[in-house]
């Protein structure tokens, strides 16, 4: 099975090529079959590969498949090579399975779109790039996937580009992530010049030998990698593009801006964990960024009106949790949460998509409401997702992954009670906004007409994801609850585990009870505020401080305004001032001088024979004169 590894990225890529090259000639049904089928086939191969990897792990628990040498320039010899280890197995499983489900959903969701073929072409290209990113054996190849997913993100956010606002959002996403990508590119250069290789395992080995813990080079390299990760994963301070990215079609938001691409930063940090271990300062910055973003995103999600923007801020916040886990060295916990988050967040997006489809793109939750009776299937799957997002204790997947991260944030030598506190507060906020969304959309009185209900092709993925988001948590349960641990030891073959903290079952139970209480009370508060006493939020907003805070959070903490002021406006001003292109005047000047010279010389071309004769004579006289006189 392992020799089929190359098929996993190759199948979606082939799907992309076929649709892109002959999309016009294919029937819609054929496009859907190729687009969805290629990813489905990749999912089947992934499952096969993963099954073999688990049942009969290759020697050294990792496997490299070299396809061909990409280029050879001096020491730079990146191969097009795929590396399979526990981390990439987890990644490709999630990417192909969730990708397949979302593409299946899109086959119906996008049914009426005129650019149906291009949608599937871009989605397939995205899945292929994401798989390259996850499987790449060297950082050079990884960078190819990294840029590929960025490109597809751009293309798909601006998929309905005829509306200016969408095109603007696409550009914003591309440019803001680019800021981080520059950091990653420089990190690659730095790693290559100082270690002489880009092959990931080799980089980790040499870095551990040559760089001391906390040395400047290691810190710089890790900081630059972090820069790339922050941009891609929409963490503070480069998070502003994610809410606007919701301009894309909902399946795009589900796949790219919730489940997979935005977690590329998490994957990158987990993949290069060796470097981050060498730079403890940067690693603690990772944790701090994580906590800051999870609170920032959560509080912003609390006051949004647009259902997709709530989910966007929520994604930001959940990735903040993953960064927190990475920052305290709980690599496996971060990847665990990546997996559960991919399930429940894409489920929530698909549910939101079904709602938007039913109500003719009514994104404002205050104009929705009462859809529970109209769309029971969507309601129940959505509740499953929201419960998992809110980490309702015991019964949801999100609970186990979030609990694992929080517990690690408390016990890890790099953790601290403060980080735990931030995370626990975030859990309360998460529960609050998740159920605010549920209550506003599905409870109360009905305010919009349901014109269309999801058909079977949309229901199947939603059902499967609902099951996954509830039950994926049982991969890893705390000691007092069966103590199942399938994921950590598995991931432990690729990611270093935490130094075993002293077992404190009582403490663990206490903290779990506390966070569970917070989550449940969040749901209760949401019920009180948005179902039982819907006038209270308005009354809070009517208070001056409350209203100000609402506006502040609604705008995503004013980051957009600050960037507008610091970056965008000055840049536009400079661009306007330089409209004539100052540097270019030198070259246009050269051209102008030439033209002037030419026109003055062309005046001598009178066409009169006698003038030419005179010219000849004058030349001869001059030449003879010079010869005689000198």
């Amino acid at each position: 099975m392992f020799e089929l590894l190359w098929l996993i990225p190759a199948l979606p890529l082939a799907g992309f090529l076929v649709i892109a090259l002959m999309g016009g000639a294919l029937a819609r049904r054929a496009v859907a079959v190729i687009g969805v089928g290629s990813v489905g086939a990749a999912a089947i191969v992934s499952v096969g590969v993963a099954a073999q990897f688990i049942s009969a792990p290759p020697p050294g628990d990792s496997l490299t498949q070299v396809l061909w040498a990409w280029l050879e320039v001096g020491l730079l010899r990146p191969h097009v090579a795929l590396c399979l280890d526990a981390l990439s197995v987890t990644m490709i499983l999630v990417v192909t399975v969730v990708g397949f489900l979302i593409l299946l959903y899109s086959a119906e969701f996008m049914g009426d779109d005129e650019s149906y073929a291009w949608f599937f072409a871009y989605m397939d290209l995205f899945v292929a790039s994401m798989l390259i990113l996850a499987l790449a054996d060297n950082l050079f190849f990884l960078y190819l996937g990294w840029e590929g997913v960025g490109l597809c993100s751009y293309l798909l956010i601006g998929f309905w580009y005829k509306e200016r606002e969408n095109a603007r959002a696409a550009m914003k996403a591309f440019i803001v992530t680019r800021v981080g990508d520059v950091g990653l590119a420089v990190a690659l250069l730095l790693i290559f010049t100082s270690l002489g290789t880009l092959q990931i395992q080799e980089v980790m080995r040499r870095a551990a030998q040559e760089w001391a813990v906390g040395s400047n080079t290691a810190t710089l390299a890790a900081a630059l990698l972090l820069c790339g990760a922050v941009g891609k994963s929409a963490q503070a301070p480069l998070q502003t593009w994610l809410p606007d990215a919701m301009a894309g079609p909902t399946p795009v938001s589900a796949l790219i801006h919730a489940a997979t691409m935005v977690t590329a930063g998490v994957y990158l940090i987990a993949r290069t964990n060796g470097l981050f271990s060498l730079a403890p300062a940067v690693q603690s910055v990772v944790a701090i960024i994580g906590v800051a973003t999870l609170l920032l995103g959560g509080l912003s999600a609390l006051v949004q009106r647009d259902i997709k923007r709530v989910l966007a801020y929520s994604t930001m916040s959940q990735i903040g949790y993953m960064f927190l886990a990475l920052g305290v060295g709980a690599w496996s916990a971060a990847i665990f949460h990546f997996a559960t988050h991919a399930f429940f967040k894409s489920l929530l997006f698909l549910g939101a998509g079904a709602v938007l489809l039913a109500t003719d793109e009514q994104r404002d939750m205050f104009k929705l409401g009462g859809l529970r009776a109209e769309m029971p299937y969507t309601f129940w799957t959505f509740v499953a997702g929201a419960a998992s997002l809110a980490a309702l204790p015991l019964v949801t997947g999100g609970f186990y992954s979030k609990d694992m991260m929080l517990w690690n944030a408390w016990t890890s030598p790099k953790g601290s009670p403060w980080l735990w506190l931030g995370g626990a507060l975030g859990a309360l906020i998460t529960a609050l906004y998740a159920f605010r969304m549920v209550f506003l959309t599905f409870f109360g009185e009905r305010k919009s007409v349901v014109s269309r209900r999801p058909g079977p092709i949309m229901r199947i993925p939603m059902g499967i994801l609902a099951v996954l988001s509830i039950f994926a948590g049982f991969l890893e349960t705390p000691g007092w609850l069966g103590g199942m641990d399938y994921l950590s030891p598995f991931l432990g073959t690729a990611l270093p585990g935490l130094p075993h903290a002293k077992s404190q079952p009582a403490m663990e139970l206490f903290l779990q009870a506390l966070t569970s209480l917070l989550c449940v009370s969040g749901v209760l508060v949401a019920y009180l505020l948005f179902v039982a006493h819907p006038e209270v939020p308005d009354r809070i907003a009517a208070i001056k401080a409350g209203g100000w805070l609402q506006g502040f959070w609604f705008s995503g903490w004013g980051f957009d305004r600050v960037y507008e002021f610091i970056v965008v406006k000055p840049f536009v001003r400079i661009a306007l001032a330089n409209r004539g292109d100052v540097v270019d005047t030198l070259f246009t000047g050269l051209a102008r001088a030439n033209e002037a010279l030419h026109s003055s010389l062309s005046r001598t071309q009178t066409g009169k024979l006698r003038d030419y004769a005179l010219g000849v004579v004058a030349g001869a006289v001059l030449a003879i004169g010079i010869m005689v006189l000198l």
Partner: protein
Amino acid sequence: MAQVPMEHGLYVAGLLFCLGLVGVLVRRDLLFVLMSIEIMLNAAGMAFVVAGAGWQQPDGQIMFIFILTMAAAEVAVGLALIVQFHHHFKTLDADAARRMRG
């Protein structure tokens, strides 16, 4: 026999050449231009002959025969061109042909 000094002959040749040149430059009638060119050629031929006589060398007279031959050919071609010119422009004014003005 009182020899004419070589310089005098060359002065006459130079004078003839300049006369021809001025003719080429100022006349607009192509026939006159052609004749002026003939005068310039003859001036050059005369200079060769005078110089050959002055230095007691036969080369000057050989060169003159060459020039004479060349002048005959030139007149033949030139006249043919003038006929064509007249056919085309219905005039012999050289300034009429100025379509290639830059």
